[in-house]
């Protein structure tokens, strides 16, 4: 069976995404969130372009790793009898956060 993949939808090419790989678990305080929640902030240091992820009260320093095999993110749409696949993004690299996170101490009281 042949599958046709549409890859000309966006002008200027397909956007490039990245995988975030964490060594750990991302957990929620209240188990069933009612609304969408912000997981964390991802930054890039300008100097050596290494990613920094602020997750809860942790700061994670990571690095960019090129994937051996690039991946494509494909959206499948069911249009009646015809199934249409559309490439949404290409993934060529991942951001690997495998080091131990550093805590952010926010409440340094004055009377310690």
């Amino acid at each position: 069976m042949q599958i046709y993949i549409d890859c000309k939808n966006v002008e200027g090419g397909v956007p490039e995404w990245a995988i975030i790989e964490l060594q750990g678990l991302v957990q929620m305080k209240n188990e069933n969130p009612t609304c969408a929640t912000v997981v964390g902030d991802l930054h890039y240091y300008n100097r050596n372009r290494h990613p920094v992820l602020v997750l809860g009260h942790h700061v994670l320093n990571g690095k960019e790793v090129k994937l051996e095999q690039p991946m494509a993110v494909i959206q499948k749409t069911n249009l009646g009898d015809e199934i249409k696949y559309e490439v949404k993004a290409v993934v060529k690299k991942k951001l690997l956060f495998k080091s131990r996170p550093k805590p952010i101490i926010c409440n340094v009281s004055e009377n310690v």
Partner: protein
Amino acid sequence: MSDYPDPDEEYELMYADELELMQEQDALTDTNVVAKSKIAKRSLDFSNHMSSQPAPSTLITKTTSSTETPVTPNEDADTETIINSQSSVILQPMEEALVSNKRTADELFGDIEDIDFDDKEMPNKRFKSEEENDLELINKIIEGRRLRQLLVEPSNRLQGTNKPKYDVKGNMSYNIPRWAFVPLTNFEGDRIYIRLESEESWENNLNINIEQPSLHAMYANAWEEARKILEKKQERLIENENTEEVVTIEEDMETKDAQLWVDKYRPQSYVDLLSEEPVNRALLHWLHLWDKIVFKKEVKTKDPQQRNSFVKRTGQFQLFNKWKGKTDNEPELDEDGRPHHKVALLCGPPGVGKTTLAHLLAKLAGYRPVEINASDERSTDAFRTALQSATLMRSVLDAEKRPNCLILDEIDGAPLPTIELLVKWCTAAIDSGKKKTKSQPLRRPIIAICNDLYATSLRPLRAVALLVRVGGASVCRLSARLAAVCAREGLLAAPHVLTALATRAQGDVRAAIQVLSFIKARARAQLKVEDVENAAIGTKDCNKTLMQALQAVFTIDDKEPEAILKIVQAAGEYDRIADGIFENYMAARVDARMLIACETLSWLRLLDAISSWTMRTQNYSLYGALSLCIARCHRVLASRAPQRVKFPTQAQEAYRKKLELESIVNSVWRGSVPSVALSRNSLKVDVLPLLPYLLSPSLRTANVQLCSESERRSLGACAGALCDYGLRYVQQRTADGLYAFVLEPDINRLAFYGNEDRVRPPPAVRQAIARAQQLEIIRRNEEMTGRAPSTTTSDSKKPVESKKPATTMREQDAAIPNHMQRLKPKEVTKSTPQVHKDFFGRIVPLSQVKRQDALPDVISSSSVFYQYREGFNNAVRRKVRLRDLL
């Protein structure tokens, strides 16, 4: 038979030259004979002249002598005036002889500057005249003594009459005499024959001088009176005759008095030494053994058989001979060429001349003596530098560049590390050059001097040193020396006085000479017996040991009844002497009604009271009474029978034992649980004597499972008691390799003095008890941690008496097995809210604190948090399927 001449001929042959000489003399001139007779006559004349000469003339001769020229015209004139008809031909050789004679005297006596040659003319004649003088004096003295002896001891002292007669005419002759003789040739060429006496008669003469003041007490009064009379008489006589002489002597005395007599009459040569000959020889021989390494000279070592060696057992020098078979074959030199003993250790009582001996012999052997005294610093560092400088270097200033010989005086006062350093220094062997060690081996002799050979600090040195014991000088030699000193100093002293002094000094040369010096310094011309008796013989370094003092306490001393106080004071340590008396008084003198013992005890009680009062108040005003108490004890206890005194050890031992038992009581008292706590005294009196009975339950078998209920109960009670009083059974390895359970602390020793094993349980039971106790400890710990307080109080109220609840408790515990039991977490109580305070202590309102906290809480309050998984990536990597996400 021409080969064998007849006796007459033989005689002529033997004395041919003498006969010839005589014939010559006879043939020569008549004048010579006259002169000869003149000489003999003149000697008498001269003595008369001397005694009757007024002072000025002797003073003149003195001035001539001070110019130090042997012969002066002035003197010539003088002699010519004295000698009536003397041809200058004869006079000339006499002057020569005078010079030569002086030289020989120099050689013989060494330093003879003190001897006043104030009248230089004819020394031999002068001697004769002096002898004549002496003779008269001696005759007078002998006369007096005989009188006195007749007064005092009529039977005993008759032998005094056969005093040696120093009769010049009888002992010397120009013709061949009949008695045994030794021929001598005069400086003039004349032959003189001097009487030869046998040694026995000579010794007899010497021995006459030695008189022990025996029977003194018996005839004290008569003796005293007679002596006074005699001495008065003697004094009168002597004063009449010798006033001039004394005056002249005193004049030149003043210049020399700066020196102590002891130093002045220090022995100058080997023959002057007063110590015993074997001692001198041993030390000198040892010094000569160093010659090989110091002077690079070959040393003759004696055969071990002939060696004069020192025997430790007898403490004397003995000459080993071949037949005894007792030879010590240790070589005198070691492989380095150094003597076997590197150090000589001289020991002996004070004042016998140890230091003098060491100095003199070191000088004699060619060394430069370097002395380190007690007054010098004796720390280890200072000692090391002194040792190095003395043994490794040599003096540059000294013209002769003699090697050093180190003399360590009074070494028994040095601290132990110093002695150890010395021993290490001595025993270090010469290296073969492989390793360059810092400390060079000893290459110079070291002589150490001590009073007490058995001082504890000397123990290491004693093993490696050559021990030389210097005894006191013998009475006869000492008195002879004292007589010589008296003669030189112009102090008149009868021989018996000097003998008494020598006896009293007990070989202490220094003390004896100092007594003489002291009497002289008081401007007295004559030494009397009272002086000697009243003289306090020097008490330098006079220490008595504890045992000497104890021995003195228990024996009656007939010679000096009052000496006990001195001895006790010299010994010090009154409390230990008292201990010694207490331990020995029952063996000393016992009477049936124990009166002596009572008396002794009362004195000891007084001593104890005084001593404890002194110690308590630190008031030493009554301290002097302690020795008096001991002296009183001596009065009560002393006997003539020889007493074997034991060294006091029991007091020490009892004290040690008491401390030990006290410590046991203390540890039990400390270790006991509060519920059974008692005062220390009641614990000691009421509980501890009975505790061993509680701790020895009577079990039929050691296996607890097989025991009856009552046995188990008693075992439990025992274990509880052990816990309560902090006792334990500890496994200890015994000498024969087995393990035994030992109670610690060992209260059995405290409970039953002596027989400690009385109620001690058998080993198997002990093991069972130990196990039960361990269980009990665990149980109690659990009780402490977790149980309701009500049960513990009821349980440990009286654990010893009411063991029942304890055992029931244990049965309850047994229902839940140990491994099933769980610790229950403790409830955390909510603490009261913290009150915030600022720096000045003011309470900050809570709202403000909250606000401050709330501000940065954005991050920490975010709902998402991250949980890091440790480990390597690959290990924790988990596959996530898309299916799971969608």
